[in-house]
């Protein structure tokens, strides 16, 4: 579904070239939930923006469904970390969720139905008339997720979406993502700096090195399909996997040119 082939990105700052991402190669199969973690500053967001077609790679390519990404790919939705700045404050919640649907050639009734459906999926049924800034942080991020879901994407890219949210809300939202993923069968690429979160959510965890960034490790999470915050997180398998990811990250921080 999503393929990165030697993708890399340089920036030019003050006349010097700095390499954010050296070269990354990985595949994400259709219907998978893959988490990407790495030390601070390793270019996770840059990677996501290249996959979302918001940034052109300096080297290599990303491909969605076999087609090289050179602009926002069709059937792809993005959820950003800064929900407060991603939702449009001049539109009500319903209009925000509806906006990306306008170019899909649906009738107004169909759009309204999708919006209602999406909001119900994120536990915000009936809140179409609310303004985004009237909602709490967690609710706003739910609206952003609803907006992505209403779009019925085949690929969902999420850039540290729960980093700006408090811990309790984060737990609820994590479960929401897993639930939506299982129900809708969408491919999810989830970027996070939170190691526990990556292990809890993902079927695979890709660990990035620090800058200049390369793939450091790939860890398969075999915690099963049914996971819950209490049981899964206190299981010995979880601890083992978490430890494995942790070790990779620590090693990545110590050896910058690995």
């Amino acid at each position, binding site marked *: 579904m999503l393929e990165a082939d030697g993708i890399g990105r340089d920036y030019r700052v003050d006349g010097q070239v700095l390499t954010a991402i050296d070269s990354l190669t990985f595949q994400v199969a259709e219907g998978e939930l893959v988490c990407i973690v790495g030390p601070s500053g390793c270019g996770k967001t840059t990677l996501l923006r290249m996959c979302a077609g918001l940034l052109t790679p300096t080297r290599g390519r990303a491909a969605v469904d076999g087609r090289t990404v050179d602009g926002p790919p069709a059937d792809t939705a993005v959820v950003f970390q800064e929900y407060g700045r991603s939702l*449009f404050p*001049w539109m009500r919640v319903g209009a925000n969720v509806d906006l*990306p649907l306008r170019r899909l050639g649906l009738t107004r009734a169909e759009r309204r139905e999708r919006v209602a459906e999406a909001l119900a999926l994120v536990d915000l049924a009936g809140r179409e008339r609310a303004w985004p800034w009237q909602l709490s942080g967690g609710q706003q991020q739910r609206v952003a997720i609803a907006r992505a879901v209403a779009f019925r994407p085949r690929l969902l890219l999420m850039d540290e979406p729960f980093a700006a949210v408090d811990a309790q809300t984060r737990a609820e939202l994590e479960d929401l993502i897993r639930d939506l993923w299982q129900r809708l069968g969408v491919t999810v690429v989830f970027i996070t700096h939170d190691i526990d979160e990556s292990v809890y959510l993902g079927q695979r965890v890709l660990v990035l090195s620090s800058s200049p960034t390369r793939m450091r490790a790939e860890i398969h999470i075999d915690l099963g399909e049914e996971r819950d915050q209490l049981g899964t997180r206190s299981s010995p398998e979880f601890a083992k996997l978490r430890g494995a990811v942790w070790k990779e990250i620590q090693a990545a921080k110590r050896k910058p040119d690995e």
Partner: protein
Amino acid sequence: MRLLRGALLLLGLPTVLFGLWWIASADSTSFYFPPLQKILAEFAETWTAERWRADVLPSLARLGAGYAASCVLGITLGLLIGRTRWLLHLTEPVLEFARAVPPPVLVPVIMLVAGIGDTMKTAVIVSGCIWPILLNTIAGVRSADAVQLDTAAAFGLGRTRTLTSVVLPAASPRIVTGMRQSLAIGLILMVISEMFAAQSGLGFAIVQFQRSYAIPAMWSGILLLGCLGVALAALFNLFDRAVLHWYHRMRERSA
């Protein structure tokens, strides 16, 4: 009780000041500062329906036309220049210079080119009103939130829809600020354009009174001008509340 308190706050000081002016000038024999009573009496005599039709309304019509043209031109050009980086860099020094020229100074120039009719007066208004709108639109477009723009791009919204649904609303607070400044400037230019070679208009009338030493009439004209300014500002506030209600409520929340 609250209503009474509100009314008291609103009208209290103005009434006191008005009363002071009345009393202080009641026995005035000064030529230049006649009693307020006299000015108010002159008001009804001077500003007859005839004069409204011949002077005041045409002036306001020209102001309306010039202001509307400035808004349309300013916002359209501002959107274009703000979104196109190279165009912005190209035009910026010239625009900064042009806006620094005091608008009234261009009146003689415009008079040369456009004569002394309605076209000239409207052109004068546009020449001054366009700058705050244009420059504020550019600034508003430039400061559109990057995450909002990313969201629009990520969902493939397209140039037109991004412009109308994202960039324009995001810039609207600044645009409205510019429109407010332009309104004040427009009123000034409306009067100035008529103080030069003109045969009619509100500014013309006031200058006529001053030249023919009809002092109470002159003062009544100044009062009328003041009232017009206040009325336009109040109307604009209604517009502001309507267009930016989301913005004001959002700021109230986080205040």
